[in-house]
């Protein structure tokens, strides 16, 4: 249990920031949304979920059959319906349960993300929260991915999530974390705080998939601390309509030879406003980071940000923002930033925004491929980043999305 004095301190700082606008993205009036929602009934197996929910969940990698999974977590609105580990050395539970169970949570909760960062973290700190606590015990190699789903089923609600993920020393953990909403939900806000701890010699891959509704707003705040010889890989995929997403996850690399990789693959459809980025701060010798973003606008707005900060010598990092405009109505704003504070850092970036090169289409047509198929092939190729742990259902979904999108051009 968190000590009362700490709880009070978090609350005090949050209260002071409740109107503080975020550094990026559109401002959201949270008062327009439902703050309190009823508790839902817990379940014992994923099979108890309705067929409709199971189907939606499958699109973001949550497989009710649990084949090739090491554990499952399902949060419906503000209730954790189920949390279970199917492998020794893996802990999965509601964050509230972890806070009650472990005194040491005081060293992990609101430590990487600050309650007074902005109005969204402030909201999260001052309202009823749920979320996952996932921990791989020291040395545990969790072979199959753990699947987590954050599901919004109530019109106009704010889903308030706070996650803590710990890969203890020498452990290995893969997480597929999907967010989606009920087919009937048209409006809502998802606030998600995630604090990742990848300790010495540990490896954590985290794949986040979004499949929201057209009018949903998303504000996630996440940060990772990476230890010595540790590897953190974070993937973000969003191919579906969403109204407004803003996030800028960061990695603080404090141990020697740490590795951070971010892959962002998104499509902004007309009406979508995506302000995304990733950040790596290299503070120990031998650290490496690679931040890659592939963005496509089919009429929506995308800000593709990236920041690498090299604070010690013998560090190396690369940032890549590539954007493809498939509509004259779309906008892609690529903002790659490099900050070197000492000699001996090796930081680079590559940014490109443009349309499909006609010559590429013609090259394929010269092999007998029609223009639409050629365009789809090039778009699919553009989005091709090696993403670990993507479920087949999502891969098929991505492929279908891109091909459908390609036909409209």
């Amino acid at each position, binding site marked *: 249990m968190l000590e009362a004095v700490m709880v009070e301190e978090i609350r005090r700082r949050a209260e002071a920031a409740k109107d503080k606008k975020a550094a990026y993205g559109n401002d959201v009036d949270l008062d327009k949304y439902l703050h309190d929602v009823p508790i839902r009934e817990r379940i014992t197996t994923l099979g108890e979920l309705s067929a409709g929910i199971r189907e939606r969940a499958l699109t973001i990698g949550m497989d009710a059959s649990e084949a090739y999974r090491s554990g499952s977590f399902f949060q419906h609105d503000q209730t954790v319906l189920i949390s279970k580990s199917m492998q020794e050395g893996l802990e999965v539970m509601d964050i509230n349960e972890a806070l009650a169970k472990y005194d040491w949570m005081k060293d992990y909760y609101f430590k990487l993300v600050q309650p007074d960062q902005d109005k969204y973290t402030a909201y999260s700190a001052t309202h009823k929260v749920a979320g996952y606590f996932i921990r791989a015990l020291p040395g545990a190699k969790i072979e199959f991915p753990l699947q987590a789903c954050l599901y919004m089923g109530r019109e106009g609600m704010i889903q308030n999530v706070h996650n803590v993920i710990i890969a203890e020393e020498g452990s290995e953990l893969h997480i597929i974390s999907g967010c989606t909403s009920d087919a009937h939900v048209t409006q809502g806000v998802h606030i998600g705080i995630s604090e990742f701890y990848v300790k010495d010699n540990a490896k954590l891959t985290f794949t986040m998939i979004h499949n929201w509704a057209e009018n949903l707003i998303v504000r996630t705040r996440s940060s990772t601390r990476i230890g010595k010889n540790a590897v953190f890989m974070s993937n973000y995929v969003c191919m579906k309509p969403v109204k407004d997403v803003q996030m800028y996850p960061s990695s603080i690399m404090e141990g020697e030879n740490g590795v951070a990789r971010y892959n962002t693959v998104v499509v902004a459809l007309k009406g979508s406003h995506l302000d995304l980025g990733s950040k790596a701060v290299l503070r120990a010798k031998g650290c490496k980071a690679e931040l890659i973003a592939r963005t496509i606008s089919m009429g929506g707005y995308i800000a593709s940000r990236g920041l690498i900060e090299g604070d010690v010598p013998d560090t190396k990092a690369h940032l890549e923002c590539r954007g493809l405009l498939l509509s004259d109505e779309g906008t892609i704003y690529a903002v790659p930033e490099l900050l070197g504070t000492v000699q001996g850092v090796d930081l680079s970036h590559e940014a490109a925004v443009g349309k499909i090169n006609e010559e*590429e289409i013609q090259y394929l047509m010269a092999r*007998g491929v029609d223009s639409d198929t050629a365009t789809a092939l*090039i778009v699919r190729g553009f989005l091709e980043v090696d993403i670990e742990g993507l479920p087949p259902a999502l891969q098929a979904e991505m492929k279908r999305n891109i091909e459908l999108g390609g036909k409209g051009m």
Partner: protein
Amino acid sequence: MLNIEHLTVEVDGKRILNDVNLHIGEGETHALFGPNGSGKTSLLFTIAGVPKYKVRSGKITFKGKDITDAPMDERAKLGIGIMFQHPPVLRGVKLMDMVRISMERLRDKKVSDDEVRELAKKLNLEGFLSREANLGFSGGEIKRSELLQLLAQRPDLVLLDEPDSGVDMVNIGLVGNTINELLQKDLKTVHRTKSGLIITHFGNILDYVRADKAYVMMKGTILCHGNPVELLEEIRHSGYSECLSCLRR
């Protein structure tokens, strides 16, 4: 096979081909000589149907069909294959995909990775299949990769743009043999059904691939035709300046 009559072509309003006439019969291989900027590549791209080459007058027929306004993919499906001298890099599209696309189109069924690998062996390109098409390929690797795609496509008319440029001594034989395979040079003349049009700047490839007829192209028009070996000797001896004043014009 291919018949070009009085072809005049513009790019961005500028005339680049002027009253070109050309006939390539079934099973024939023709060579096209000419200095840089004479319009050789433009002629190949016009035959292949690259959209920026606008036909202002004249006609192109292929296998008896008027293809003057046909899109590129339709021409490819009819049996026209082109080797690009400077192909674009296709990010995320692997050479394996390119070869497979052509093979599947030809056979009208799925092709396995092993089948693609088997074909790639012929050009020592197995190691390149998983690479993005043309990314970081050397001049010689591009030639081999283009030829591999043509082998997969099996076109009836092969348009080759300087297949010998940038190819080292070790690989020129391989390139020559592959072109001979594409053009069925192992068969007797009467049995050949594949035709070719080869652009060559220095004529090196003709040491490996026998051509039936050659043309000299200058300033967007075909000035003369003749025996490839003799024409090449004359050009090597006197250069192209002689062509401008040649009596056979």
